[in-house]
């Protein structure tokens, strides 16, 4: 098992944000974590990345507990997050953003070849490589955020709401990219409010509600689960 | 993590303690082991026949930061102590002015070694006296010397903006104009800085022949050093008692050659040499280095304690007559207690060197002064002490004679003019 979360309890001061969640991810999988705003999805990702610390529970990555390891060392183990809201460095150029993505590596030739690969994969970024990140459009910023994460050669990619704020056509494009990344061997933990899209590309899914996991199963089963349809796929949600 | 921080904290504390130990800072509360005059603790155990008490003097050095508000706080604190009898300060004119009314109300005589602003003795205070000479005499002597002896007619006056420096520069300028000279520039500097080339360039544009500076040696030395590069080559630097001293020599080196100062630093005498040796040995630095007032401060301390011994009464059977008739009553010193003499000046901050120097000089005076002996309790009539200081006559100190006039001006020796020749302060011929 690549990632195993066991009885994770996280607090923001007095607020009990994660109330003992457990789930796992196998190597090569795409696992979707779906749920409404405030369900604790981003909290889960940030706890895996080491930005937040659990009060109780463990995060095992290939058998090693991450809950005492600082964030920068978790990155070095190959767990890379694409944060919610993209969080690209707006006052740095596109090329600098990609450089920062490969911060953990000192192999300059490899960084260079990876960057060339990214520019091949995302021609739009190549055109704008010397532009400041803040001047890019939303879709371009999302591509930059993904490319930046790929620069670190992730083994497990944590993606937080990659579709947020994007036009439907761009959402399609982003999800194609995600599938593509997975096919090249990277495991992905995908957090989404857009349950339809998330479940359609993932292998398995977990449904979160107010800090708990309330449902789990293969994605194709969740897609037809009446509860899921009612709450996340029905009216209103795009 | 916590352990780590604790370690750092301990480290810092250790460094601080190490620094405090042998440092030259005054620590008036600590008993002075080398002082021969400590109140003997065995007084109570001694046989009844020889029941003699010994009342030693103690220096209470306070930090007023050279500011009026700081001085008022110090004065209020000191007058609350019933064993506090006299003040050898304050150091700076502005601070002194703020403190005078507080001592006036409490009947504490003052004898300042360094507050030279002329206005201080014009307010009619009964308690304020000084053995510093006034800036009126100093300015007059300086202006006359510049005009008559040096023969200069174009003067630039500069000052540091303080009560002392500005007052002095203004007096010199006034005197100089009255004699027929021309004051071509009158500029102020910000004290504490080390680059005055801009203001000196502005002064240079007015082509003066001599530059008078009212202020202290730190700024005076900076100005002297930067005159040539600012277009004031060959212009004579003329300082005051604030710029006199070994420190000025050291800081100006060759640039100081030919610079003048007015001061009351005495020529060598056995008493002065003994003081110099004692000061140097105890504080690791020669008097006159930290401030030019070392000798004056020593004299002020001795003069005050002499006045105390003149009026003090030791009595074993209750309050003496002198106390009842005294307007301020008596300071009552029980056996085992000390007679507190104060000093107040800037002991921290930018002018810390001044305050520390004077308090150190006074510490030497206080520790060497013989205690008052007698049977019973010591009574010091405060009003009588105020009068004793004000009427002091012919007290021979190492820096000159102290004879107080009715307004509290006690310096009877007047300023001496010095010029730097071959790197040494040399008395200048009038």
């Amino acid at each position: 098992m690549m990632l195993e979360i066991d009885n994770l309890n996280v607090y923001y001061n007095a607020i009990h944000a994660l109330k003992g969640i457990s789930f796992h991810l196998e190597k090569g999988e795409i696992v979707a974590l779906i749920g409404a705003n405030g369900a604790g999805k981003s909290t889960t990702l940030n706890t895996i990345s080491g930005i937040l610390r659990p009060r109780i529970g463990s995060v095992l990555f290939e058998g090693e507990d991450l809950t005492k390891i600082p964030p920068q060392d978790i990155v070095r183990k190959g767990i890379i997050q694409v944060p919610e809201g993209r969080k690209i460095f707006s006052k740095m150029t596109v090329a600098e953003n990609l450089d920062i993505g490969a911060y953990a590596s000192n192999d300059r030739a490899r960084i260079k070849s990876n960057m060339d690969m990214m520019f091949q994969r995302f021609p739009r970024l190549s055109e704008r490589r010397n532009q400041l990140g803040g001047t890019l459009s939303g879709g371009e910023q999302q591509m930059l955020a993904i490319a930046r994460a790929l620069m670190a050669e992730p083994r497990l990619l944590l993606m937080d709401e990659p579709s947020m704020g994007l036009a439907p056509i761009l959402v399609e494009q982003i999800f194609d990219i995600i599938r593509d990344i997975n096919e090249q061997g990277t495991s992905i933990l995908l957090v989404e409010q857009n349950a339809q899209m998330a479940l359609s590309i993932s292998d398995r899914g977990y449904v979160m509600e107010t800090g708990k996991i309330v449902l789990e199963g293969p994605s194709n089963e969740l897609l037809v689960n009446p509860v899921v349809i009612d709450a996340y796929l029905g009216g209103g949600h795009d | 993590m916590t352990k780590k921080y604790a370690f750092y904290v301990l480290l810092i504390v250790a460094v601080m303690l190490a620094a405090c130990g042998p440092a030259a800072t005054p620590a008036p509360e600590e008993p002075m082991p080398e002082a021969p005059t400590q109140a003997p603790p065995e007084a109570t155990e001694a046989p009844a026949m020889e029941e003699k008490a010994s009342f030693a003097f103690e220096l209470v050095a306070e930090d007023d930061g050279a500011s009026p508000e700081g001085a008022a706080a110090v004065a209020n604190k000191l007058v609350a102590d019933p064993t506090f009898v006299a003040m050898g300060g304050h150091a700076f004119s502005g601070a002194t002015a703020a403190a005078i009314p507080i001592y006036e109300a409490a009947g504490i005589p003052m004898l300042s070694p360094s507050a030279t602003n002329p206005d201080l003795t014009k307010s009619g205070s009964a308690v304020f006296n000084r053995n510093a000479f006034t800036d009126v005499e100093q300015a007059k002597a300086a202006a006359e010397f510049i005009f008559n002896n040096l023969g200069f007619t174009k003067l630039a006056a500069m000052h540091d903006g303080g009560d002392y420096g500005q007052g002095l520069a203004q007096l010199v300028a006034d005197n100089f104009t009255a004699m027929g000279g021309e004051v071509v520039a009158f500029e102020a500097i910000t004290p504490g800085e080390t680059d005055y080339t801009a203001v000196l360039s502005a002064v240079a544009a007015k082509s003066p022949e001599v530059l008078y500076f009212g202020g202290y040696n730190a700024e005076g030395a900076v100005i002297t050093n930067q005159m040539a590069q600012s277009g004031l080559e060959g212009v004579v630097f003329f300082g005051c008692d604030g710029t006199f001293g070994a420190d000025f020599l050291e800081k100006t080196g060759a640039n100081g050659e030919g610079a003048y100062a007015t001061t009351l630093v005495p020529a060598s005498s056995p008493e002065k040499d003994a003081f110099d040796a004692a000061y140097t040995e105890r504080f690791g630095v020669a008097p006159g280095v930290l401030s030019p007032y070392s000798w004056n401060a020593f004299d002020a301390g001795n003069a005050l304690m002499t006045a105390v011994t003149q009026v003090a009464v030791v009595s074993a059977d209750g309050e003496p007559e002198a106390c009842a008739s005294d307007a301020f009553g008596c300071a009552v010193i029980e056996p085992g207690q000390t007679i507190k003499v104060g000093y107040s000046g800037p002991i921290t901050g930018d002018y810390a060197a001044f305050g520390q120097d004077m308090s150190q000089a006074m510490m030497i005076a206080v520790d060497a002064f013989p205690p008052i002996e007698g049977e019973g309790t010591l009574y010091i009539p405060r009003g009588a002490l105020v009068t004793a200081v004000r009427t002091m006559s012919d007290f021979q100190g190492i820096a000159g004679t102290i004879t107080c006039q009715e307004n509290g001006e006690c310096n009877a020796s007047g300023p001496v003019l010095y010029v730097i020749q071959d790197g040494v302060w040399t008395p200048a011929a009038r």
Partner: protein
Amino acid sequence: MSMTKSSVQPIQKPWTSGRVIRLVLAIIVIALLLWRLYTVLVVQADYGPETWVRFSISGLIIGGMYALIAIGYTLVYGILFMINFAHGEVMMIGAFGGYFIFELLSSIVLSNGQTFNDANPALSIILAFAAGGTASAVAGYFLERIAYRPLRKAPRLILLITAIGASTFLQNAAMLLFGPQRRDYTNPEALTRGSGWTVVINNSNVTLTYTGVMSFVLSIILMAALYYIVQRTKLGRAMRAVSQDKNSAALMGIDVDDVISKTFIISGLLAGAAGVMWGIHNGLVNHYTGFLPGIKAFTAAVLGGIGNIPGAMVGGMVLGIVESVGPAALGLDFQLKDVIAFTILILMLLFRPSGLLGEALTEEKL
């Protein structure tokens, strides 16, 4: 952080009363300045060109030192959003570092009777800068580790108060350790204070002091080096990333604490260099040496736009020039130079809170 705010510009600002008042104030200030300039330059014409050149030289030299210190304020502000008020004291520690090296080297007498200091001026100066820079860097490092890091999550006001406390602590610690008297820098003979190249302007000798030229050139070199580090190196990228978003930086594998430490070290190095320049050029150092330059450099940093590195450089130079030229140009007393400097600061905050080159000081940042 204001990430996207700058791209959203209102097309037409409403005419609020505040704006009108500011406009009127601006007109009054400008009219006043022009009138004073006219009086001084045309009517009185007290100063010849040689005097103005002297003013400018003084200003550039001190401006370079201000700029180096100001960069420290701006770097730390950029990364922690705090004003490190103890930074002036960090500079003072560097000044003492250089002082003790010069004392040591001038006490070594070589076989030909010269002191080591005089015989090897270049080496002595390099050693002094190395010692001063190191002393300040170490001071900056421990300042952050001991005083600021435990408060990383505390409200900013607490950090500010801590910084002021640290400033007082360092000042008094230096007084206890080194004594209160001002100490004279023993420059190598080749760098004797006051000596220099002479240029004749308007039949008057204008001196370009060796110490001043060295300080100015070195401060330019150091600023260029810093700019290179920040813009072109991995550490520089990490510093910028941390200043923009600490969490995201950590997600990129950047050790945020380490970068913050290094920022304090770099700030310290620059301040230490400024301290040694201060000593070499101005001559005297004591425990209070850092206080005024620290406040001035803070002013310079705000003037240029706090958080903005080129802004700190420009702000330092502008402040230096304003201080030396300003009083004469406006026909004011030279003691008012600080008043002029701080007035400019207030006007800047009033009319252009972002500083000369900076981004807006949003409430979020303060």
